[in-house]
């Protein structure tokens, strides 16, 4: 039965309308606001590229980008390394391994805000469990939440705890897709586990590695709930990550124009960056 073009269009129309309303219209509006000075209760004024220029001269933007990159820089490599390590350790046909696979996945399903609240207690400097343990071992307590550097580490540690299972699950799936006869052939050539890992396992899971890296980068650039609950962006603005700054600018200060500019610039930076990463990794795999 042939379906007319009009019919096809009408069938698609509701979905199209939804996408336009939920995604395209807000995006266009965001771009529009980028060129406006929005003032609460006093209307908007066209200011051209002023919001975009402010972005590049705003110290607070620079500080929030640095905070985000530092936290991502600590968290992402650690999550990938630990995720891969756990996956390799667990990918064995030994009794009880299914239990460990389940246990290792749990943190991923916890609510980030709840985890962050719990972390405040864990990292509590005066008598919290971590500092108590350090004191017991004869070490100096650490200023987990009141020192700018350690606050970034604390946020990163919580992120690592929460996202390592995600990396673990994806790596595990990748490992389990490698044909066993490759390993059988490899064991004939060498007794070194490291050689087998480096020559067989690692090259074959590199596409998985790329997927994990890209997914983590995309998600980590949006990090918000953990620092918002744990440190509220402090001390000072040491852990005020970029999404938090956009949120505050738009919804606390109602500087919607500038917030829109920030969000728009983030999008412009993020997309080409990810595309470049994908291109580079593809070149490496090829």
């Amino acid at each position, binding site marked *: 039965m042939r379906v007319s073009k009009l019919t096809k269009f009408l069938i698609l129309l509701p979905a199209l309308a939804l996408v336009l309303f939920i995604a395209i219209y807000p995006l266009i509006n965001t771009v529009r606001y980028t060129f406006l000075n929005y003032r609460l209760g006093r209307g908007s004024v066209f200011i051209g590229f002023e919001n975009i220029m402010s972005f590049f001269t705003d110290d607070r933007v620079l500080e929030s980008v640095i905070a985000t990159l530092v936290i991502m820089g600590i968290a992402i490599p650690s999550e990938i390394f630990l995720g891969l390590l756990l996956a390799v350790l667990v990918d064995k046909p030994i009794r009880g391994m299914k239990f460990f696979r389940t246990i290792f996945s749990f943190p991923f399903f916890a609510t980030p805000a709840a985890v962050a609240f719990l972390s405040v207690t864990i990292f509590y400097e005066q008598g919290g469990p971590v500092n108590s343990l350090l004191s017991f071992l004869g070490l100096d307590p650490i200023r987990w939440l009141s020192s*700018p550097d350690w606050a970034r580490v604390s946020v990163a540690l919580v992120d690592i705890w929460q996202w390592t299972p995600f990396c673990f699950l994806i790596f595990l799936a990748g490992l389990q897709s490698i044909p066993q006869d490759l390993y059988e052939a490899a064991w004939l050539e060498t007794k070194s586990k490291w050689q087998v890992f480096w020559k067989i396992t690692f090259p074959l899971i590199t596409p998985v590695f790329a997927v994990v890296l890209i997914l983590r980068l995309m998600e980590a650039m949006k990090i918000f709930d953990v620092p918002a609950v744990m440190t509220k*962006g402090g001390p000072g603005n040491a852990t005020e990550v970029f999404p938090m700054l956009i949120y505050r600018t738009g919804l606390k200060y109602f500087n919607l124009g500038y917030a829109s500019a920030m969000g728009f610039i983030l999008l412009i930076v993020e997309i080409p960056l990810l595309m470049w990463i994908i291109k580079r990794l593809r070149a490496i795999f090829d």
Partner: protein
Amino acid sequence: MKKLSILLIMVLILVPVMLLAIDPNRDYRGVTIRIAVMQSGRKGAISGPLYDAAELWNKETGGKVEIVEIPFEDMYEKIMTDLIAGTGYYDGAIIASWWLGDLVAGDYVVPIDEYYEKGTHPVWKKEWVPPALAILHEWKGKWYGPPNDSDGQILYYRYDLFTDPEIRKKFKEKYGYDIPVPPRTWDQVLDLAEFFTGWDWNNDGEPDYGFVMHLKVHGQAFFHFMSLSAPFVINPYNPKLYWFDPIDMKPLIKSPGHKKALELLLKLHSYGPPAEVSWDLGEAWDFFLRGKAAMTFTWGDLGSLAQDESRSKVKGKLGCAIIPGTYESYDIVHGKWVKFDKPNIVGNTTGASWYGVIFKHSKHPEAVYDYYALMARRDFSLWNISNGWTGVDPGLKIHFLRPLGEAKMRDFLKYGWDPGDVDEYLAAYYENFFSELLFPYLRIPGTPEYWDSLDIHLSEVVSGQKTIDEALDAIYKDWEKITKRLGRKEQLKLYRESINWTEEDDKEYLKYHKK
């Protein structure tokens, strides 16, 4: 006989019905109003008493109240988003005083004078409200909400330690003067803070501290700075200028007085636990209540929490005083330091002083006013301030003990207060709210953003990320950006109105400032 019996039965039925009948001027049967409030729970600060008031209001008027609790950090955004979008979800909200500028500028709220004058709603009197607090409810002579909470910070100290003979002897040996009870200057507080830091004066096996503050960024730490810095900048020669130049709206934050105050804050922090940089109100208060710090300064909540022996070791040991002053203050008007023979003391209303406003789009504005007026009524207001869990602090004239006000000691004792603590607490608050000099509250549009900048850069100083000069420079630049974005002329006009700056003031100011 039969007729008499029938008559008696009718009287027995009708009289109670008549007594329970709703006042026709306050008949809100079928009306439901939706009020937003900071989230603290049914028995939590600020939100809790709304539930009690709602039950009472329902009995008196038949009306219903739907209370919507919103976390403090999200409340401003949620309410403003609702108002800007015109959704009209809330009929009113219990607001923080510093929001009034934005609400009036956006024409989102309704003045209450008309309802107050009617006289058919629960009675409260404007005369009860000290000028320091009244100004928070007003804009250009119109009131926007009945009084509810009265915020202001006072100094809390351990009266028992300050009056202990052994401790007093040791202090005098070290500093050459007796422990002042109460301390009246920040220099005295610094000596006391230093004295009580680093040794175990509470015999718990751990060294204790002289001072504690809640310095967490976005945790109301900036209010500490405001209360502390007031006497360094506000004085009889400059009673109004703290925030901006009244001629060109340039920030005044880099004045020598502000800088000296920030140096003091840093010194006080050195006598407190390093972790306080990441402490919210609860953690800092808990530290004092557990008896780990000899002094702190904060809101009235601490006085009432001190009475809860399940978490407080300081019940019956409280000393309270108005925020200490200074012998030297910077006079911004005349551009010089001035010295005083007695301490320059400045009261404050730092904090939210939460009260209810009526949104313009509400279909039941008078019902909303009636509900708020009930909470301001003498009986409910006295109940509110004598119960510590409500978070509503005393400030109205009726809250103070006779002969200053109308409250009685037994009103507090029945809720478990220690009588000595009551005396100290109320005396300090009376002195604070009725002080001759008062810290000028900022209520112009953009206040949350100005204060956020102050908060962040103060936190950078105490956490060692910036020096004092760098922080004050950064605040200055931020405030200039905000003012430019919001419109310098409009901001200046509203700022001058908010501090009652007149042309007479201009004449004096311009003698010493070239503009």
